[in-house]
């Protein structure tokens, strides 16, 4: 088991956002979280990356309890990459600088040493000609792919994607989804919060339907999309499909 979440609770003030979530993710698996806005998908991802402290429950990464309050969060975050809906590139840096910042600071190696690694990533995702561009000189799809490269440059073991295509113009969604397909093909362990039902159905190993802070139903995409067991799942799917 790569990632194991048991009985995760998270609240913001009086608002309980995650109400006892259990989720297991195997090595190389792609898990898609679907559900209405506010159902807790993003919060769950932020908890996994320790951007939000959990109120109760445990998250285990390779058997190591990362929610242990004694655990230093920084090395854990280095093992878990995260990509956001609004890209969140650093606007004052070129694409290459965005990608190199964390590896430079964390490994202590120089730009020159790290550059080949970064260049290889840019080339792989057909962005070699955008390396010296600033975020505002790129399309949304290009920015989001740079954000993915930036996370990959830390050689993470798990990648979290928080509605990474939701802010994109429809014609740019495809290029980002292609990147996700490529990552899946090479065995990256991934968790996606997504509204791209077609993509989830095509690529996911497991789909989880979140409703009001709980995983109401989970299963392989064929089953969950074709024969949902829960009435709420069926109702949600009928609204979005």
């Amino acid at each position, binding site marked *: 088991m790569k990632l194991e979440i048991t009985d995760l609770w998270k609240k913001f003030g009086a608002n309980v956002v995650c109400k006892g979530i259990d989720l297991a993710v195997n090595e190389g698996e792609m898990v898609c979280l679907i559900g209405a806005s506010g159902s807790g998908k993003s919060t769950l991802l*932020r908890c996994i*990356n320790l*951007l939000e402290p959990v109120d109760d429950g445990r998250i285990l990464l390779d058997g190591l309890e990362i929610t242990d309050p004694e655990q230093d969060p*920084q*090395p*854990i*975050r*280095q093992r*878990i*990459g*995260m990509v*956001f809906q*609004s890209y*969140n*590139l*650093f*606007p*004052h840096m070129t694409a290459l600088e965005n990608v190199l*910042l*964390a590896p430079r*600071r*964390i490994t202590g190696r120089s730009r020159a040493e790290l550059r080949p690694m970064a260049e290889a990533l840019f080339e792989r995702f057909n962005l070699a000609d955008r390396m010296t561009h600033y975020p505002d000189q790129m399309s949304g799809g290009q920015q989001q792919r740079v*954000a993915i490269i*930036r*996370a990959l440059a*830390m050689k993470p073991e798990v990648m979290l994607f928080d509605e990474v295509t939701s802010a994109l113009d429809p014609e740019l969604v495809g290029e980002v989804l292609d990147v996700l397909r490529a990552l899946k093909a090479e065995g990256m362990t991934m968790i996606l919060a997504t509204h791209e039902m077609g993509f989830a159905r095509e690529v996911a190993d497991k789909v989880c339907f979140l409703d009001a802070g709980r995983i109401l139903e989970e299963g392989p995409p064929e089953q969950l999309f074709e024969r949902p067991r829960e009435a709420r799942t069926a109702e949600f799917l009928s609204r979005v499909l």
Partner: protein
Amino acid sequence: MGAPDRQAAPAGAGAAGREFGPSRRELRERRERRRSLLIAAVSTALTIAAIVILVPMTPGWERVQKAFFNEGVFLKTFPKLLDAFWLDVAMFLWCAPLIALWGLVLALMRDARSPALYPLKLFAILYSDLFRGVPVILVIYLIGFGIPGLGLPRPWNSPYIWGTVALVLSYSAYVAEVYRAGIESIHESQRAAAVSLGLSHGDVMRFVVLPQAIRRVIPAAMNNLISLQKDVALVSFIGPVEIFRQAGVYKSLYANFTPYVGAALIFLVVTVPATRAVDRMIARQQRRQS
């Protein structure tokens, strides 16, 4: 694939095929503009005429003219005032970078999160209350007379040092607030992205938040610099003979206020272009952000 061609053809033909004169709305706006220009010109001319005609009719005008706008005194004192102004410029030039630096240090102290650094945070909070709550001139008096009063040896009893230290202490408190506003204006998502990469809090601040925050607050900080340019004159109260003091000396010598008018003119020559430049910077930044 045929769609772009289809669209391009009529657009090209349209532009070539018809000449556009001014629209009815444009014509109307032109008429309105001409009318407002005329009104503005007439009312300005009337106001100036009233001042030029009426003010000299006041009973004290001749005395005021002699006391404040005396050509002979002006010509005699102006070059010396200009010389004295260089001291203001020099004090400004060594205060400004110190304020920028110390203000930043204060802003970072105030932002400290670790409990071990709490004393620094508390210090920064009290500092800001203290120096923003006391008039600059009082700080200059207290420090400028107080510290040399400790009996320090030369050159450490110099009013140049302690006068400018007082300015740095006061202005840093304001500039620190400007920095803080900049730091807070950086969206949480930028921090989240940096933290999610595994960067330390210090690195997030240094490489992601501060570079963006400082760029954002430069115009606002410039406004502080412009008032500093004027406030260096306050240091004269504890001794240094800069332009304001020099003007005072000439006032006594010639029993005439014209040197003050000369000093004011010299300040204006510097501060008006600076203010305009900063206003343009702010406007440009607002355009970029919207």
